[in-house]
């Protein structure tokens, strides 16, 4: 019945970072609930959501930590980078200042996560193309220079939101496959579960007829 959602082989931990008001919580909400949250309150500290996705036939559970963008929470949110397998670095394509701050976010992310953490740059609010303040090419170049994945998305229309989370997961999965991500190390941000269900296995040994009391 409802057993399916729990049959996943990996747990990936994500964090979402970026300036205040770029739509981090809305992206998460769109991804987990498939709905746009119109008047999203400021995040206090951190919040988190989960969803199960499928990459190359493997079910993966994403545990996503959505951090507050406000400067006053920096001290708190910094502590959540630890052990993230993926980081979504979000800016607002209609506000250049949020793009300009990316390098500081990137520095934080590089310093506080492990070297294998996959960072994806997301230009949010792609639906507001008329008010665009940062060009696609420019951001694309920034991403390439820094070895980041890059997408423009819209939490409002849902465009590319799914892809943003999936692309990062694919990259992480690929890292696992080619062995560059060591699952046995602590705080890799990935937890592997042996997929063979232990209780369901068939046994070849014949069971003795009776044991204990007979009634």
């Amino acid at each position, binding site marked *: 019945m409802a057993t399916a959602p729990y049959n996943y082989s990996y747990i990936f931990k994500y964090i979402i970072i970026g300036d205040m008001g770029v739509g981090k919580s809305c992206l998460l909400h769109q991804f987990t609930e498939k709905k746009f949250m119109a008047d999203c309150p400021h995040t206090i500290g951190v919040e988190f959501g989960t969803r199960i996705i499928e990459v190359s036939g493997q079910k993966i559970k994403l545990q996503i930590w959505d951090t507050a963008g406000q400067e006053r929470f920096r001290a708190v949110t910094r*502590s959540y980078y630890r052990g993230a397998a993926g980081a979504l670095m979000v800016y607002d394509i209609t506000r250049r200042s949020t793009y300009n701050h990316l390098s500081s976010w990137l520095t934080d992310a590089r310093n506080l996560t492990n070297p*294998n953490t996959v960072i994806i740059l997301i230009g949010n609010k792609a639906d507001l193309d008329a008010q665009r303040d940062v060009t696609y090419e420019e951001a694309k170049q920034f991403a390439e220079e820094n070895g980041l994945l890059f997408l423009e998305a819209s939490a409002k229309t849902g465009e590319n939101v799914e892809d943003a989370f999936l692309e990062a997961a694919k990259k992480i999965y690929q890292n696992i496959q080619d062995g560059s991500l060591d699952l046995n190390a602590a705080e890799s941000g990935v*937890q592997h579960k042996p997929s063979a269900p*232990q*209780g369901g296995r068939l046994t070849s040994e014949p*069971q003795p007829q009776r044991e204990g009391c007979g009634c």
Partner: protein
Amino acid sequence: MAEGSGEVVALPASGAANGLSNGAGGTSAQPNNPLSRKLHKILETRLDNDKEMLEALKALSTFFVENSLRTRRNLRGDIERRSLAINEEFVSIFKEVKEELESINEDVQAMSSCCQDMTSRLQAAKEQTQDLIVKTTKLQTESQRLEIRAQVADAFLAKFQLTNEEMSLLRGTREGPVTEDFFKALGRVKQIHNDVKVLLRTNQQTAGLEIMEQMALLQETAYERLYRWAQSECRTLTQESCDVSPVLTQAMEALQDRPVLYKYTLDEFGTARRSTVVRGFIDALTRGGPGGTPRPIEMHSHDPLRYVGDMLAWLHQATASEKEHLEAFLKRVTAPGVEENIQEVVGHITEGVCRPLKVRIEQVILAEPGAVLLYKISNLLKFYHHTISGIVGNSATTLLTTIEEMHLLSKKIFFNSLSLHASKLMDKVELPPPDLGPSSALNQTLTLLREVLASHDSSVVPLDARQADFVQVLSCVLDPLLQMCTVSASNLGTADMATFMVNSLYMMKTTLALFEFTDRRLEMLQFQIEAHLDTLINEQASYVLTRVGLSYIYNTVQQHKPEQGCLANLPNLDSVALKAAMVQFDRYLSAPDNLLMPQLNFLLSATVKEQIVKQSTELVCRAYAEVYAAVMNPTNEYKDPEGILHRSPQQVQALLS
């Protein structure tokens, strides 16, 4: 017939014999002549149509080959001879037939007697087997009845008993795995146990009771086995990721019917996860990520806020994950109180990390990193208490209690530190600086206060929770500060004292004004400032009056009573003295700023200074107005009063404003 045919046979012969004479006889027809009649008859005979005649003729032609007289005469004999031969042949043939028939008759006769015999024998046999048949029929019905009973019994067994496989599934071995089928069998046992109640209502009570008892026993055995399996399964859940298999969730669903076993299994799960979380926490503290990135949390122990924040964030994440694992573990449990169970077990799981956490935070706090840091740590603890209680609920879990304890401890040490600071202020009260500005102790304390309040403002503690802290912080710092200022000002002159106090209070007020929840304090400070302002205003007014020589005159005018006689006669109040004072007063009117008290220039706030000048000037005007009224009053017997005081109060006011 035989005769007829004889005649027919004879006729052709005569016809043929008479054929030649036909013509002659026909012409002389005599109708009533028998011969002619016969002739007619013959003539009318149509040989073509008479088949018998034709046959006869044909037969004749086979042997009558030679038409001669002799043969014609012998014809009859020939024919008769032939007929005889034919008949003889007939007889001999029929004789055979007859013999055959007779033998057949004999056979039939034999058969008949044989049948007779058989019939009688059958009759006898029938009579003999009658009994047997009755018996057989009886047995047959008996057998049918038994068959039906067997079916009923089978159906009964199928409904109220388990198959062997099911039995062995339920009893199983101690270490054998539990599979889906186990739960099906367990469901059957439950079903039977329920259904058997029907039997109790019928007259099959004994069977009902027995089955019930049997099922109950079986159920207990099965639950016992399930419990042991689930328990050992839980013990293996010690990886960082927690793989809750579908069968295990099913086991929990089944075990919820046995609250004690259910609870023990939950406990086992909790214990396994608990040690996992502790291990993970210690790893994060001391080992960090792969290759040391992220660095172990303890690497940041020199930065108390980061250190404490990292630990709490780790625990926050771990708590959230553990709750998820539990939700997966118990997702099929439908009994009420699952939420409480989850909270309780999360509480149990996170209990293990409390000691290492407590030891470390205590270390940080007791090292007294300074009031501001203490306050920040205290707020951080409060925030995490709030955040984590969102996951584990408000039940008194040890983790929350520990965080709360640490919060209280940090707060206590923080206030201790503030109080210590405050009492140090009182220990060595400095003299006010010569410029009557805020003392260095005051500045220092206000800086501290500002930092504390600023960190409070930027803390993650929800708004309403902050207010209570504020009152305490303010009373802890501001009250001793006010005391210190008062003590340090106590040895000064009135104007110096008031100026110093106004300056100090003003500094406090501007510091506080930047923060929320300070309205009450601000109001109180404003009142105190105003009290000291009044002093300064009075001081300034009397300073002016004294300097221009109106002080004595004004006092005398104020205290003068009619029975003392007219003012002009009082000493020092004569017109000469008044005129001299007016000269001074005029000088003041031309340059009022020259007569400001030196202390007023030390005032930090220009607005305050302006206010003092303005209000003291009004006082001076009022004093002059009173003196003027007295002088103009005829009862005071001044001659030429306008010559003495040549400026009206309105003029004075206009000049000074």
